[in-house]
């Protein structure tokens, strides 16, 4: 009530200031009149009474001002007046205003831009209720060098029975399936999950029902929930959809509900969520091919859940049988342990480091920009020194003068912040349309209330910071000095110049830090480009992925014949020089790992063999990819049709197992001791299949079609990618012809992941490219702003010492020597700045170690190169500004005084 009254009355007074002022003036006047009348009743004459009242009550102006100063509105009014004054002053000097606003807006725009990304990617919670309770159930197996081990049904079932720290846990897998529709078969993306999945995420259907425990029963009816998009595109949004059947690759599933339109999971909008149905009685201990998610009990921490999980893990061993060929010893050797983490981490990964580095970078740019503006403000305030002294002499409170100065810089900052937001918007647009950047949760990046809030706080905060420098220097003026006009007739106070010198040193130092980090990133980028990825001319390799579902084509031999027929058709396409098939495209395909046993090694007491990367291929793969064959030979089709009793290994596998590539030839290997031995017939160059910045994994290339392989009697890959080398790669016409070729063998087969190999390659470099791009921009801005600061500082020094220069020249000093004095001072400052910057970079660069690739954070070459270029440009800037000194006309200079 009190508050409302304050507010209402305050606003009324603000809106009717004149009226309120008149009311106060009237009251004060009447007060005088009453006092005078009172005195008159005591026998004073009229004139005497007026005088006495005046003596007693003091000046009516002071009286009115005191009464008028009551209330929040008059404080606001004062600020508004000061604000009007500073706006007027800023308008009066458009040059200064424009330069400061541009400088600050660049820094603020960059900062807001990076903050928008951090906000959208890292800070915003996932779009679920209490998303912080959601945990990804990963495990780790250091014994077999697997950091992120997936979930297994055996462990899921044990957890369901025994866990105490989760409200619920679920197991799921994502993938694609072919839906046999009315017209075309099409590939849909879906999630198969146990029934707890949607309730863990807190997702309720918009139509129909969600999954229940009964949906997990493999003997019951297969059930599916469809997305809002799929509902509208395939069922016209009809409520009749419930109970209808979807033909999932020959396996019908009944639609029980429609997901809400907003549903998304791990940055994807799946077309459907299927019941994941696993027969508990046939579950074996090891089948780590699923993922797990759980919702923590309220108040439970990940540490507690990890302890709970660690307690449960050994129980699974007693409840489920080991698969054939595995021993308990192998299981123990793997040292499986929990590796829980927030679900968000799965999505965001380690991008956080990059983003915070960039935030620090733009923070530095912003500081440099502020230093520049602070310098300009110092000069400006110095010119105003007399005015300030007059104000102080007339009785303006020190606080009031400080407020005027601060308001001016905060006004600058806030205007620059608004312009910066515009720049930020442009930056985000540019990033979102650029191919270079693949950020997780990119759809969530934008300017929201938090970004605006951040921009306001940062712009007001930083502008107050640089605004304080002139305040501290000038608000306690020695009026006598200033009024005398000391600025003109006396030489300069040393301390004043020192502040500016300090600012220049500060700018140069920060600029060097940024230059060094950008330099290190450039080196990283070059190093990455020099890594031989294992393939060549990636722009000429087209890839396309298909699935041949086992409901359609049952027999493995028919599958491989069909795949070979497709390959033959592809090779006949105009312009194709070679083509082949792989189970996973480098940097793009699924990652499969398994043990590799060698016939010439012993595994005492059932110890586990090292795990290697598995790839399945057909003949011609290495030729198509341009991967060098070091020794031995490629596969042949007769190898495949004869049971696939051969294998090819990568160079690092060969060296790891037998010492040299040559020694590998003729050795026999197999995945498990239930399989047939395969003979190593060739060794190929290493392939950086996880990205060029990652160590090349040790790969074994198996035949795509094989007998007695991985405990299957006949094994074939149905999820395959074609790799096609042709100069026409990437063209739409080629893609049309590829589709025709494949469809001539298998009509209407859905095609996925049609891209060039170069796209995968670039995407694996995306993070480095993104960091490099933004760091280079920041470094460039820092250098430019630093140089502008240096230039401005020397120009100002020259202008302040015009008289002295005039005298020197008049007395016969060589012009070159006069110029040199200024260049020397500029160089001295840059050198000091460089020194500080080098020290700063040495301290800060190790923080970005994880972003660097085969370059040390203290790489001498980068440091030297960047320091030299900085000193060089700094001396250029010094020379350009010092040239002004040479142009001083002694006659003019002396007359001006």
């Amino acid at each position, binding site marked *: 009530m009190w508050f409302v009254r304050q507010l209402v009355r305050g606003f009324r007074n603000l809106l009717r200031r004149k009226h309120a002022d008149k009311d106060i003036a009237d009251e004060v006047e009447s007060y005088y009149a*009453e006092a005078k009348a009172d005195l008159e009743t005591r026998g004073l004459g009229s004139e005497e009474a007026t005088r006495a009242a005046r003596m007693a009550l003091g000046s009516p102006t002071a009286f009115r001002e*005191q009464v008028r100063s009551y209330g929040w509105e008059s404080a606001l009014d004062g600020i508004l007046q000061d604000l009007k004054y500073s706006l007027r002053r800023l308008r009066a000097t458009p040059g200064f205003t424009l330069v400061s606003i541009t400088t600050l807006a660049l820094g603020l725009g960059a900062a807001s831009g990076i903050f928008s990304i951090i906000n959208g990617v890292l800070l915003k919670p996932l779009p679920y209720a209490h998303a912080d309770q959601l945990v990804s159930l990963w495990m780790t197996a250091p014994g077999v060098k697997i950091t992120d081990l997936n979930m297994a049904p055996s462990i899921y079932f044990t957890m369901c029975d025994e866990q105490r720290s989760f409200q619920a846990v679920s197991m799921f897998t994502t993938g694609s399936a072919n839906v046999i529709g009315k017209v075309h078969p099409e590939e849909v993306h879906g999630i198969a999950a146990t029934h707890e999945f949607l309730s863990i995420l807190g997702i309720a259907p918009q139509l129909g029902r969600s999954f229940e425990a009964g949906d997990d029963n493999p003997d019951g009816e297969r059930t599916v929930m469809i997305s809002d998009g799929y509902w509208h595109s395939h069922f016209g949004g009809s409520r009749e959809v419930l109970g209808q059947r979807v033909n999932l690759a020959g396996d019908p599933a009944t639609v029980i509900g429609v997901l809400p339109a907003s549903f998304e999971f791990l940055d994807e909008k799946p077309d459907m969520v299927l019941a994941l149905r696993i027969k508990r009685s046939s579950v074996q201990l090891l089948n780590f091919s699923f993922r797990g998610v759980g919702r923590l009990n309220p108040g439970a921490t990940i540490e507690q859940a990890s302890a709970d999980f660690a307690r449960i893990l050994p129980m699974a061993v007693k409840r489920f049988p080991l698969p054939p060929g595995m021993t308990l010893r192998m299981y123990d050797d793997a040292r499986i342990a929990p590796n829980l983490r927030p679900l968000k981490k799965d999505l965001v990964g380690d991008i956080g480091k990059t983003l915070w580095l960039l935030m620090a970078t733009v923070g530095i740019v912003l500081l440099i920009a502020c230093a520049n503006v602070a310098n300009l403000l110092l000069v400006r305030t110095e010119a105003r020194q007399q005015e300030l002294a007059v104000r102080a002499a007339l009785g303006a409170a020190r606080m009031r003068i400080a407020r005027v100065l601060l308001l001016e810089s905060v006004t600058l900052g806030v205007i620059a912040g608004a312009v910066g937001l515009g720049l930020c918007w442009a930056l985000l647009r540019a990033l979102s349309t650029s191919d270079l950047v693949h950020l997780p949760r990119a759809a969530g990046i934008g300017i929201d209330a938090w970004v605006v809030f951040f921009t306001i706080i940062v712009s007001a905060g930083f502008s107050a910071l640089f605004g304080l420098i002139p305040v501290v220097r000038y608000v306690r003026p020695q009026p006598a000095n200033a009024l005398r006009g000391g600025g003109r007739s006396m030489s300069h106070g040393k301390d004043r110049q020192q502040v500016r010198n300090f600012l220049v040193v500060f700018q140069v130092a920060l600029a060097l830090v940024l230059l060094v980090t950008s330099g290190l990133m450039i080196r990283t980028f070059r190093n990455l480009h020099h890594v031989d990825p294992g393939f060549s001319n990636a722009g000429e390799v087209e890839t396309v992925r298909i699935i041949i579902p086992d409901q359609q084509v049952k027999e493995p031999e028919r599958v491989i014949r069909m795949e070979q027929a497709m390959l033959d058709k592809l090779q006949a396409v105009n312009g194709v020089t070679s083509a082949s098939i792989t189970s996973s495209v480098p940097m793009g395909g699924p990652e499969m790992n398994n043990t590799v046993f060698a016939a010439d090694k012993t595994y005492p007491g059932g110890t586990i063999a090292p795990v290697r990367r598995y790839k399945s291929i057909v003949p011609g793969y290495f030729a198509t990819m341009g991967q060098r064959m070091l020794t031995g030979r490629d596969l042949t089709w007769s190898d495949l049709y004869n049971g696939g009793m051969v294998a090819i290994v990568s160079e690092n596998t060969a060296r790891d197992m037998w010492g040299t590539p040559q020694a590998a030839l003729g050795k026999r290997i197999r995945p498990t001791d239930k399989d047939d031995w395969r003979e190593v017939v060739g060794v190929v160059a290493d392939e950086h299949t996880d990205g060029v910045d990652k160590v090349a994994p040790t790969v074994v290339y198996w035949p795509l079609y094989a007998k007695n392989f991985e405990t299957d009697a006949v094994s074939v890959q149905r999820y395959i990618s074609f790799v096609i080398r042709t100069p026409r790669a990437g063209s739409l016409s080629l893609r049309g012809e590829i589709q025709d070729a494949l469809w001539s063998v298998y009509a209407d087969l859905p095609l996925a992941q049609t891209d060039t190999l170069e796209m995968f390659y670039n995407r694996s470099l995306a993070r480095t490219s993104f960091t490099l791009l933004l760091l280079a921009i920041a470094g460039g801005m820092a250098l430019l702003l630093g140089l502008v600061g240096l230039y401005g500082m020397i120009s100002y020094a020259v202008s302040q010492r015009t008289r002295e220069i005039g005298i020197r020249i008049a007395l016969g000093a060589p012009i070159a020597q006069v110029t040199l004095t200024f260049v020397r001072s500029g160089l001295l400052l840059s050198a000091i700045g460089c020194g500080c910057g080098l020290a700063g970079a040495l301290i800060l660069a190790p923080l970005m170690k994880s972003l660097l690739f085969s370059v040390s954070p203290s790489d001498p070459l980068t440091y030297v190169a960047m320091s030299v270029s900085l000193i060089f440009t700094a001396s250029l800037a010094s020379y350009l500004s010092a040239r002004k000194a040479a142009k001083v006309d002694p006659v003019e200079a002396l007359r001006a005084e």
Partner: protein
Amino acid sequence: MLTIIWSGDYAGTMENNANTDVIQGTLDMLILKTLSLEPMHGFGIARRIEQITRNVFKVNPGSLLTALQRLERNGWLDAGWQETENSRRAKVYRLTHAGRKQLQNETADWQRRTAAVSRLLKTEA
């Protein structure tokens, strides 16, 4: 914040020279108490306070009018322009119901405090 304004000729008409500023924070209570007798204008309040306290307390007019604004905005006073007895216009303040209550609270509070202070002083003696 209170300074001695009543001095010179006008103060000379009073006998007591041991003038004191109004004790910080009590001005509101004094105003409320004064207005509880009858509605008054600003100068009237000041004069009444000084008369009743026999000039122990001096009231700074600026502080007085500021305090009146504050009290009014708190809802304890109503104000309006009126003709005074000698046909001048003055802004007259009147205690509201809420103001009366506030006065009771402040009086009780004051008495509690002064009683405590005098008890303390007695034991000291």
